[in-house]
C-alpha cells in the first residue's frame, strides 16, 4: 500500500508490545473514542528505568504503528529518556506518516507522558505539570493537529 511506508505497515501488521500489564507502575490513556482513537500505555518501572511497556490502541493503522514504535523506543530507557521522545522522532523512526496522520504520533508521545505522570502521581514525585498533556477525556475537539 502506497499510503504507508514499509516500516509503518510492518509495525501495523506485527505490532510490538501489545497487551496490558496487570501490575503496571504507571498507566496512561489519551485520545477519545468520539474521535476514533484511544491509546493506552502500561509501564513497569524499576530504579527509574522502563523495564517493560505494553500498549492497547483503538485507532487507525498509523495509530497502531505509532504505539508499537513508541514502545520500542522507550523500552529499557530511563524515564528522562522516555520523556524526551517526541512525536517527530516516532514519525522519523516510522519513515514518515501522511500529513493528516501526524496526530496519531502525537497520541503516542502523549500516552507515554501520561503514563509517566501517572507513575509520578502514584509515587508522590514532584513534576512540572506544564510539561504534561491533560488527562484523556478532556479533548474539546477532535482536531488535534
Amino acid at each position, binding site marked *: 500500500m502506497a499510503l504507508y511506508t514499509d516500516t509503518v505497515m510492518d509495525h*501495523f501488521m506485527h505490532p510490538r508490545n501489545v497487551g496490558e500489564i496487570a501490575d503496571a507502575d504507571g498507566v496512561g490513556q489519551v485520545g477519545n*473514542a468520539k474521535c*476514533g*482513537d484511544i491509546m493506552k500505555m502500561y509501564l513497569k518501572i524499576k530504579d527509574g528505568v522502563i523495564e517493560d511497556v505494553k500498549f*492497547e*490502541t*483503538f485507532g*487507525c*493503522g498509523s495509530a*497502531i504503528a505509532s504505539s508499537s514504535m513508541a514502545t520500542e523506543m522507550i523500552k529499557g530507557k530511563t524515564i528522562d529518556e522516555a520523556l524526551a521522545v517526541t512525536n517527530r522522532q516516532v514519525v522519523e523512526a516510522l519513515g514518515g506518516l501522511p500529513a493528516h496522520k501526524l496526530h496519531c504520533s502525537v497520541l503516542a508521545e502523549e500516552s507515554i507522558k501520561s503514563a509517566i505522570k501517572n507513575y509520578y502521581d502514584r509515587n508522590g514525585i514532584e513534576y512540572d505539570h506544564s510539561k504534561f498533556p491533560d488527562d484523556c477525556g478532556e479533548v474539546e475537539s477532535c482536531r488535534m493537529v
Partner: protein
Amino acid sequence: MIYADNAATTKMSPVALAAMLPALEDNYGNPSSLHSVGQHAAELLQSAREAMARCLNCKPREILFTSGGSEADNQALLSAAELGRLKGKKHIISTAFEHHAVLHSLKRLEKQGFEVTLLPVGPTGTVTAQQVKEAIRPDTCLVTVMYANNEIGSILPIEEIGAVCREAGVLFHTDAVQATGHLPIDVKAQHIDMLSLSGHKFHGPKGVGALYVRQGVPITSLIEGGAQERGKRAGTENVPGIAAMAAALEDACAHMEENRAKVTALRDKLIAGLSQIPHSALNGDPVNRLPGNVNFCFEGIEGESLLLLLDDAGICASSGSACTSGSLDPSHVLLAIGRPHEVAHGSLRLSLSEWNQPWEIDHILREVPRVVAYLRSMSPVWKD
C-alpha cells in the same frame, strides 16, 4: 484479491471495453469536424445517446454528457438555482445524507442566499414523499433526493417523491449514481426532471457521466466554450468513454433482473453471516437496499485498521471511518442515521457485483470475524 468495493468503482465489463477500444484506436475524430472521420465519431456519439435514452426512457436530446456524476450533480443544482433566482424562489429541499457533490453544491448556494432544508433520514436512512410534501413551500425551486445511498445502500421512494414534486410544480432532481444500471429507471413514470449518473458505477469507464434533463427544463452551462451538447456543456466530447458507458448501461439494463437476483442472494448471505458477530449492527434498511450493499458497524473497532487487515487477507472493502477520509469526523451518512461517533468509526462497507463468487462470500465470512476479534483484543476500550 476479492473485490468488494463496487460502490466506490467497478471494473469495466468486456462489453464496455469492446465498445471503447475501436473508438480509441480508429474512430478518433472530433464529432464537430465535418469530414468523414469526424462524422463517424459523431455517429458513435449519437448511437450512444440513443442507447442511453432507451435505458432511461427519455429522448436522446434529453441526455447531456458530462465528465461524471459530480459534474452532473453540480450542473443540475446550478441550473435549478439559476431558474429559482429568476423566479425569486430560493428554497431547496434535500436530505441529510446526499453525496458531497450535492451537499457541497448546496453549501455554495446557501452562501449565495439560498435556503436549504435537509430532511432527516431516520434510522433506516430514507425520507418519505410525505416529508417532502410538507417541506415544500411557495418559494421552493428544487427538490433533490438521491435514488439510493452510496454508503448504506438504502433505496428512496423517488417515484412517490417525483409525483409530489410534479403536483406541486417543483423541479425534481435525483442523484442516481448508485442506482443506475442496478435499479429500474423510467424518468417519465418516476416524474424525474433531472437525473445524474456516472459510468464507472456500472462497469463503464471513469471520467464520464450524464445528466438527464427533461425537455423544457432550461439548463445552465457549468463549462462554457464550444457548442457541444447543444451549447450546454463545452469541451471536445470523450467519445470512447461515452460509447463505453452507453454499452455498459445497455448491458446492465439487459441483465438487471438476473444480476439483481444473484447479487441479492450473495448480499443476504453476507448480512446473515456478519450479523453473527457480537455487537455488530447492520446499517440501512435490511430489505429496501441496493442489491450489492452490505454495511455494518462493529463496536470497538476503527475502520481503517479493519480495511488494512482485510486487504492483507485478500479483501478489498471500504469504510465510512473518519480515518479513511483524511477528516477526523466519521461519515456524515452514519451520523445522519443516528450512529454515535464512536460507533460510526467502526463501519465496514462491502459492495458486491454480479462477478462476485459464492466462495468469496465464504472467505469474507471467515476473515471479517477474525479481524474484528483481533482488533477488539488490542483495544483499550473493549473488554468482553
